[in-house]
């Protein structure tokens, strides 16, 4: 793609999300979502093969449906409150429709079916943008309408998402599908605590974005899209096997790493609000996620995976330089001692 056009379209994706996050008029928020969707389609279709086109079409259809539902909820809200500002949604019907629309945009269950298929059909860099940047805009709207969200619907969607994200990723060997199911599960964790303490949603979003960025950049660095090709990293750059191990365990939520911080805070907040069965179930279902991360680390860093002899002697051409990778690795694994600083977020 022409670099000038590519830059313009990428900047429009950023502009769309910025408009969603900083507008106070519902119509501008809808315009921001549409601008975001329109501009990301050619980024998803960077290579012109039928798989990327199918993935972009699926993404466009689901997100356009979600935007239409959002517009309907906005108009019902307008009819019942007479004003366009975002404070809270004044009508329960509009609130339910809006929550469903934003859940479709995020990829929560029962609207999660597009996430693995779209993530698998596009390149690693496009998948990175899809799973991190595109989650910011709907989550910011959910944050702003969080006082008026129906608790039952949101918690059902959250718990089912954690379940689907854990179970669905168990049979996968393609790395992009694994990251997609991981995204579904993390979105479930984020929306579970949204009604109780939205700050923790933002904290979880921040740490999830850091960890997913790190994982994708490690995959891009070794150009691997399957578990099998990831298991050859010991031959290319042995250091990244340790880094993959640490980052994957952090994504699974293990204690001395920073991925534990959001899970800990969320479970604490839920138990403070006298729901005990729910965080227990959520913590148990997060073990499913941890299982397939552990399987990746087993084949990548803990063992030298069996391969044919010619795979053991790879030519080293120029390695990709990813500048942001070392700080991201440090941030996605070592942030746990900073947890007492969360008191500044009040």
């Amino acid at each position, binding site marked *: 793609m022409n670099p000038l056009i590519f830059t313009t379209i990428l900047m429009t994706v950023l*502009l769309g999300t910025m408009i969603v996050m900083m507008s106070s008029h519902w119509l501008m928020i809808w315009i921001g979502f549409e*601008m975001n969707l329109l501009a990301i*389609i050619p980024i998803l279709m960077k290579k012109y093969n039928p798989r990327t086109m199918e993935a972009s079409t699926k993404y466009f259809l689901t997100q356009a449906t979600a935007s239409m539902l959002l517009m309907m909820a906005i108009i019902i809200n307008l*009819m019942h409150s007479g004003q366009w500002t975002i404070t809270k949604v004044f009508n329960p019907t509009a609130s339910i429709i809006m929550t469903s629309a934003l859940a479709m945009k995020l990829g929560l269950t029962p609207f999660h079916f597009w996430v693995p298929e779209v993530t698998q059909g596009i390149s690693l860099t496009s998948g990175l943008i899809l799973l991190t940047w595109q989650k910011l805009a709907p989550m910011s709207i959910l944050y702003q309408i969080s006082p008026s969200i129906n608790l039952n619907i949101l918690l059902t969607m959250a718990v089912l998402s954690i379940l689907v994200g854990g179970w669905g990723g168990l049979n996968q060997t393609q790395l992009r599908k694994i990251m997609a199911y991981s995204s579904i599960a993390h979105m479930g964790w984020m929306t579970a605590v949204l009604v109780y303490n939205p700050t923790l949603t933002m904290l979880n979003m921040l740490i999830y974005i850091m960890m997913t960025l790190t994982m994708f950049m490690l995959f891009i660095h070794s150009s691997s899209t399957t578990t099998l090709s990831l298991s050859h990293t010991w031959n290319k750059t042995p250091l990244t096997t340790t880094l993959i191990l640490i980052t994957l365990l952090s994504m699974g939520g293990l204690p001395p790493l920073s991925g534990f911080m959001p899970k800990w805070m969320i479970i604490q907040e839920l138990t403070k609000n006298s729901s005990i069965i729910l965080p227990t179930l959520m913590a148990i279902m997060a073990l499913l996620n941890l299982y397939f991360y552990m399987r990746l680390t087993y084949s990548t860093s803990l063992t030298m995976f069996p391969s044919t002899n010619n795979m053991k002697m790879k030519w080293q051409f120029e390695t990709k330089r990813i500048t942001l990778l070392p700080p991201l690795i440090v941030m996605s694994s070592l942030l746990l001692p900073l947890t007492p600083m969360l008191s500044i977020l009040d």
Partner: protein
Amino acid sequence: MMTYIVFILSVIFVVSFVGFSSKPSPIYGGLVLIVSGGVGCGIIVNFGGSFLGLMVFLIYLGGMLVVFGYTTAMATEQYPEVWVSNTTVMGVFLLGLLMEVMLVLYVLKSEEVGVVFKFSGVGDWAIYDTGDSGVFSEEIMGVAALYSYGAWVVIVTGWSLLVGVLVILEVTRGD
């Protein structure tokens, strides 16, 4: 009939939407788009918005749909699909018509429409009467406000349209 004119026009609106979303060939889709555009203009005019209705006719029908018609005429196939030529298209069209007929009967029974939410009629655009400058209508004031207070909206929509053209050119360019 004049008391129900908005209702009749909105029924024709929905039926023409069903007509093109059952996917006949684009030239016939354009035909029912013309009908739906004209009927939509009629609905807006009935609420007192004469300026916006004329905008729909001029810009939408007379500008965009004409260009659409010409490009579709250049790219048309030898035997375009009508609503009755393909079983699927006819089935979807009849299904949409059936749902609309059921909705119309349900609406005609009760005073207000309550399918998912209660909807009991909309108001007209307000008419302001200042002493010295005459009578203003709210919908023209809205268009004027778009270009004065709503400059940011104009910038955003203009940029969206420009990026829309760039995106469409990129997507259809292929290799």
